[in-house]
C-alpha cells in the first residue's frame, strides 16, 4: 500500500489516483436512503408540470385552435 491515493474499500475495490478524492469508509456500512435522489426527481416532475402549463399557453392562447377533420 503506497499511500492515500490507493484507498481500498471493504469490497476490495481499488480507488486509483485520478478518479477523485479518497472516499469515506464508514459511510459504506450505513443504511443508504436515496433522499437526495427523491428530491431531484420531484424537482424534475415540478419542471414537467410547469412545462405542460407552458404548452397550454403556446397551443391555446398564442394562436387559434387547430381543428383537424
Amino acid at each position: 500500500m503506497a499511500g492515500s491515493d490507493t484507498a481500498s474499500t471493504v469490497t476490495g475495490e481499488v480507488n486509483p489516483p485520478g478518479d477523485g478524492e479518497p472516499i469515506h469508509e464508514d459511510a459504506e456500512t450505513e443504511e443508504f436512503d436515496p433522499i437526495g435522489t427523491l428530491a431531484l426527481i420531484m424537482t424534475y416532475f415540478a419542471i414537467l408540470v410547469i412545462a405542460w402549463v407552458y404548452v397550454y399557453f403556446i397551443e391555446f392562447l398564442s394562436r387559434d385552435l387547430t381543428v383537424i377533420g
Partner: protein
Amino acid sequence: MSAELEAEPTFVDKFPEEARIIRAAMWGSFLALTLGAIFGIIQTLHRTGIARPFSSVDYYTFLTAHGVFLVISFTIFFLVGLFTWAVVRSLDRPLLNTKITWTWYGMMAAGMTMTGVSILAGFTARIDMSADVLFTFYAPLQAHPLFYTGLVVFVVGTWVAGADWFRTWLAWREENPGERIPLQTFMVLTTMIMWYIATLAIATSILVFLLPWSLGLIESVNPTLTRTLFWFFGHPVVYFWLMPAYMLWYTVLPKIAGGRLFSDPLARVVFVLFLLLSTPVGIHHQYLDPGIAEGFKFISMTNTMFLLLPSLITAFTVVASVEYGARRRGGTGIFGWLRALPWRNPAFTGMMLAGLMFAAGGFSGMINAGLNINYMIHNTIWVPGHFHLTVGTAVALTFMAATYWLWPQLTNRPLYSPQIGLAQVVLWFVGMALMTNAMHSQGLLGVPRRTAEPEYAGFDYPMAFGGFEELNLQIAIGGTILFVSTVLFIANIVITSWSPKASGLARPLPPALSGPEDAPKVLDNLRLWVGIALVLVVLAYALPLAGIISNSGVFGTGAGTYPVWIDATTALAERVLAAITTAATLLVDAITGVSSL
C-alpha cells in the same frame, strides 16, 4: 508506483487483440464524428442565413451526410467497440475467434464506405451518383444502388458482431454453469436481440423494395409500406444508440462518482423493457402519414407512453447510484451531496450533463409522442431540436465522456488533457442548450425542418418567445460552439496517441449494492423475452401492414421516382420485372383475400 497498482492490469494488458479491435472501431467512429461535425456547422450557418458559401441544392447532400455519418457511423461504430469491451470485460474471457471479429469490423467499414461514397459523390457532377435521400431515405426519393448496398453490408456486419458476442457468452456459460449472466453482457445481449428484430424490417425494405427499385428491376414501390418498414426499424435504432449510453450510466458512472450501482435487478428490468417495447411503437413517427388508421396510431402512442417507464426507472437508479457515491465522499444534505461529486472529472461531468439533457429531451419526446400535440410540431425544426438532445447529447456526449475514461485503459496512455476534456463537455452542453432551445422555439413558430432556406418572401413567422432572426442567431452560435467542442475532443484523443505509456491506468468496476442474486432468475430467460417481443411486434404491425398492402399493393401504384438518375433498364431487368410483378399480384391477391376474411 506501488506494487498494488502494478498488479492491476488494464484491459489492453489482459486482452491486447480485443483492445486493438475496439480502438479500430472507435477510430472509425471518431472519423465519422469529425465529418459529421464539419457538415453540421456548414448546415447550421446555411439554414440560419449567416453564411451560404454552397448552393442550397448541396444543402441536402450535407444534410444526408451529417445524418448518416453521425447516427449510423459515429454511434454504431462506437457502440460495437463499447459492446466488445463490455462483453470481454464482464465475462473476463477473450472473444472466441478474433478473425470473425475483424470480419464484421471489415464488413461494417466497407458498407459505411460504400454508403458514404454514394452520398459524397453528390457534390460533383462528374460522377453519375448521388444519394440525397436524407437519413430516412423515404421513397420516392431514390438513391444510387451503392447507398442501399452499403447499408445492407453494414447491417449484416452488425449481425455478425452480435453473433460474435452471443458465441462468446455461450462459451462462457459452458465454463460457468448456473451463473447469472454478468450485467454488462446481459445489456449487450438484450440490446442485440432488439437490434435483430428491428433490422429485419429495414433489411426487407432495402432488399425487397428499395435496392431492386434503384437498380431498375422494379418500377415503383409503395412509399407508405417502405416508410412503415423504416420506422419499424427507426424507433428501435434510437434505443440501439441509447442503450450503450444507459450501460455506461449504469455500470461506469456510479464507479466514477465513487459509488456503486444501486440495483442490478432494476438495470436488468430496464433492458428487458426496452427489448419488449422499443419496436412496437414505430408508427408514432407516422402520426401524420395518410394510409394508416388512427386506431393503430393510438395503440402506438399507448405503447410509447409505456416506454417512458424504463427511462424513469433509469433516472431513479442512476441518480441514486451517484448519490450513494456522493455520500461515501462525505456529501450531506438534501441537495448538498451534489457538491461532493467529482465535477472536475470530464468523464463524470460529461455523463451527468448528458443525463440532464436527456431529461429535457424526455419532455420534448412526450410532446412528440402525444397523438394530438404532435400535430403542432410535426415536420418542424422542433423535431431535430428534440433528437439533438437525445442522440446528439444523451448519447454523443456520454460516448465522448466515456472515451475519456475508457481510452487510457485501451491504450495504456493517460489522456493528454483532462482540463481540455472538461472544457469540451461543458462547451457541448452550452452549445447544445443554445441550439436546441432555439430549434424547439422555432418549431413552435412553424419553421420547417430539412429546409435550406426556411425564410419565405412576404411571410413572417408569428412572434412568440423570441423572433425568428434572434433564434437563428442562437442556433448559429450554438452550432459553432458544438463544432469547437468536437474539434477539442478529437484533438485531445489524437494527441493522446503521442502520450508516453504509463501503468496504473486500470479502473475496475465495483459490484452493485443489490447484486444479481436479488434479481428474479426469469430476467435472464432470453428466449422468453424474445418470444414476448415478437408477439408484441406482430400485434402492433400485422394489421397496419396488411392494411397498407391491401390499400395500394406491395409495389404501390406508381408514385414516381425522384431523382431519376438511372435509365439503364436492360431487357433482362424487364424480364425479371415482369416475373416479380406477376408474383406480387398473386401475393396481393392472397393478402387481400386473407384480410377480407
